[in-house]
């Protein structure tokens, strides 16, 4: 094949792909989203990834993977302020099974990091599965161009940017300012600096962050959800058992699904509208292929 032929083929192929979405859909290795309910957090996580076409769809052999849970608070798992440790453990195992070379689990916590890592159960669970669970390291904080609409620049932890693959694992919680803190808000844990000042324009800020970090996969922890006194809770009565995990390639859709558990329509959450307008994803789940299962 000479160069001219190659370019011709390329153009032709492009045209065919452009005008025949069905062809792409057939080539697609799985649905856009899988929602699984069941008793065991580990089992429903495993099933959700299986429904998505397996972790191999997202992780290639030799990848360095970063898993970003919410470990923000000094609370135990049953208080639903931090991501479920069993879900994190399962994801680490799946990443290694898919051939990942290295899996790191980390978060910039709000309470003392040592307490949050230990009492959330996440450090122990992730380490047991072979992941590295370092504390955020101020020396790896780098001022980066976010190129957001509001946030042009912000100091971020290089670990999240340098990883080959990024998996966001938020827990769905009530929040007084933005109503719900789910996946996009979770990126506040990947950055440093004066994070508390983002509250002055939180909706725009978190969309800017979400469009910068762009995870390959979002795994929504809605096993327990925090329905009041968020984002920390503190009493079992603040927690509702939802027993659901949703895996999604669309971060906006993942947050939309979570909102449904709180009986909140997507248009009530300002950041979902902003994110959709920016092309980060869909709030209309009808436009996506969604696989629902129960274990």
């Amino acid at each position, binding site marked *: 094949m000479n160069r001219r032929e190659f370019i011709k083929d390329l153009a032709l192929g492009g045209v065919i792909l452009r005008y025949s979405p069905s062809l792409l859909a057939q080539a697609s290795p799985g649905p856009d989203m899988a929602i699984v309910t069941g008793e065991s957090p580990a089992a429903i996580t495993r099933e959700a990834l299986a429904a998505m076409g397996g972790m191999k769809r997202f992780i290639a052999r030799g990848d360095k993977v970063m898993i970003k849970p919410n470990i923000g608070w000094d609370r135990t798992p049953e208080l639903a302020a931090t991501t479920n440790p069993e879900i994190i453990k399962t994801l680490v195992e799946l990443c290694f099974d898919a051939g990942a070379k290295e899996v790191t689990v980390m978060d910039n916590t709000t309470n003392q990091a040592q*307490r949050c890592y230990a009492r959330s159960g996440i450090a122990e669970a992730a380490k047991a599965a072979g992941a590295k669970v*370092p504390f955020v*390291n101020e*020396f790896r904080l780098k001022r980066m161009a976010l190129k957001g609409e509001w946030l042009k620049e912000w100091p971020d932890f290089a670990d999240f940017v340098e990883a080959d693959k990024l998996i966001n694992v938020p827990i769905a919680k009530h929040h007084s300012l933005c109503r719900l803190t789910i996946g996009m808000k979770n990126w506040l844990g990947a950055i440093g600096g004066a994070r508390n*000042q983002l*509250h002055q324009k939180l909706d725009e800020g978190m969309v800017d962050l979400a469009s910068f970090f762009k995870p390959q996969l979002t795994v929504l922890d809605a096993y327990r959800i925090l329905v009041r006194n968020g984002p920390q809770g503190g009493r079992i009565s603040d927690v509702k058992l939802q027993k659901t995990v949703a895996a999604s390639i669309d971060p906006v859709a993942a947050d939309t699904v979570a909102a449904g558990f709180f009986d909140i329509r997507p248009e009530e959450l300002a950041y979902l509208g902003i994110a959709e307008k920016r092309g980060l994803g869909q709030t209309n789940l009808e436009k996506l292929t969604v696989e629902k299962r129960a274990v």
Partner: protein
Amino acid sequence: MKKERSRKYRALQYLRIVSQAFFFGLFLYLLFKTHFTGQDYIGRVEVFFHFDPLLAIATAIAARVLFASFILAGITLAVTLVAGRYVCGWVCPLGSVHQFFSFVFKKARLLKPRKEEKSGGRLVWKYYILIVILVSCLFTVDLVGIADPLSFLYRSFVTGVIPWFARAGAAFIRLLYGLKLSSAGDSLAQFFGTLSLNQTFYQGFFLSLLFLAAVLLNVSKERFWCRYLCPAGALLGLFSRWNVAKVRVDMDKCIKCNLCTLHCQTQANPYPNEGWRSSECVYCYTCASICPTKAVYFPVKTKPEKITSINLSRRRLIFTSALAVIAAPFFKTTPAGKRAAAKLIRPPGALPEPKFLEKCVKCSECMKACPTNALQPALDEAGPEGIWTPVLKPKIGYCEYYCSLCTQVCPTGAIKELTIEEKIKVKIGSAWIDKNRCIPYALGRPCIVCEEHCPTSPKAIKFVMVETKLPDGTTATQKAPVIDLELCIGCGICENKCPVVDSPAIYVTSVGETRSEKNRLLLETLQPGSPLSPDGQRDQ
């Protein structure tokens, strides 16, 4: 006479150095373990203090109460009574620091041993210091923490040496990254992360200088602190007259070279032997091992020794005591005892202020344990007695909701030990909003960071919708914080995380603290069932 040094005493000297290194290592180990290590309860990392008879006696006198843990101090007293001041020479970690630097300064020729006055000269100072401390304690002015060797050492390490270590470590890590040794930098940064060292202390610089001064005094005299200043040494000195371990010089072998007395670490004067001071000897075995003719030896004899050559006359004793009697009331003349101070936020579990001051030995253990660096040494917040006692500074750190470490490590019970369940019910102050600075109130912009961080459930910070006139004449409506004082525990996380960083728009003052009957606000906050309900511990 054949000149030969004793190998036996040389070996004993080495054994003493090993012992000192071991106990200094133990001190460091326990100190570095004093933080959150993954468990809610960390065990008796403060155990060194309980072997200190000075703290035991001073606390017992000042607070008129016996603290059971101090039973261990009886061991120290018993050892001293039977054998002499071995604890000073072989165990005390501050003694080891002074000994080490004396050795270094000697080797560097900065410290040249000179012949001392026969009278003992300044040796008597430490006895005066001891008397002033104990007599003041009678008047419930507890100054022991200022000069107690363990308090001094711990305080210096917690507020000075460890912050220095952490920052030096950070500089080294930065260097590693600069040299592109990123993986070494990463590992070292993680290592420091697991130590959770507090690096910021008001007075850190000043307290470091004090420690440096104490170390540099060794240029003037070997173990200067131990010889002239240490009140705990003085106390043990008073108990070492009846001890059975003596120092004797075999006059048949002695060549009167005076090396033993010249190099005596604590001026105990082994030669001439009738001038040996049992009360000063710390059994370092330097004299016996340096003697060129094996003339110095340590026999066991039961005859008591006279406290010789230390001019501790009755007249001076009475004079010093009188001085303390006169001085003690001066410490009470400040308004600190009269009225609660807004910024005097004590750690949870702290006893009512007068009781707290009687018991606190200013050791900084709580400041080491605090996970957020919130506890800071006081300067004038608590009056002159309260210098270097712990005060919570929300601008530096906040009280971590599920943590009760500071209450567990307090060696004297000045901070009453609390379980986590008890601790979360203790109110240490109340939060207030400065509406002139609060972002939603003053600027009409969204914020409520304080509400997000409030750890209680239901939250003590709630929000209301407020209207704010903007500079352009329009009106903004925002969620703004309001405080429910019934729920607020005064932890200070709101002040700590407030985005108005220079002078936070929400701040905590001590009013409403559970421990006080006077510093109240809402009567309902004094729950009779609460663990610190002031039954039996009322502040007057």
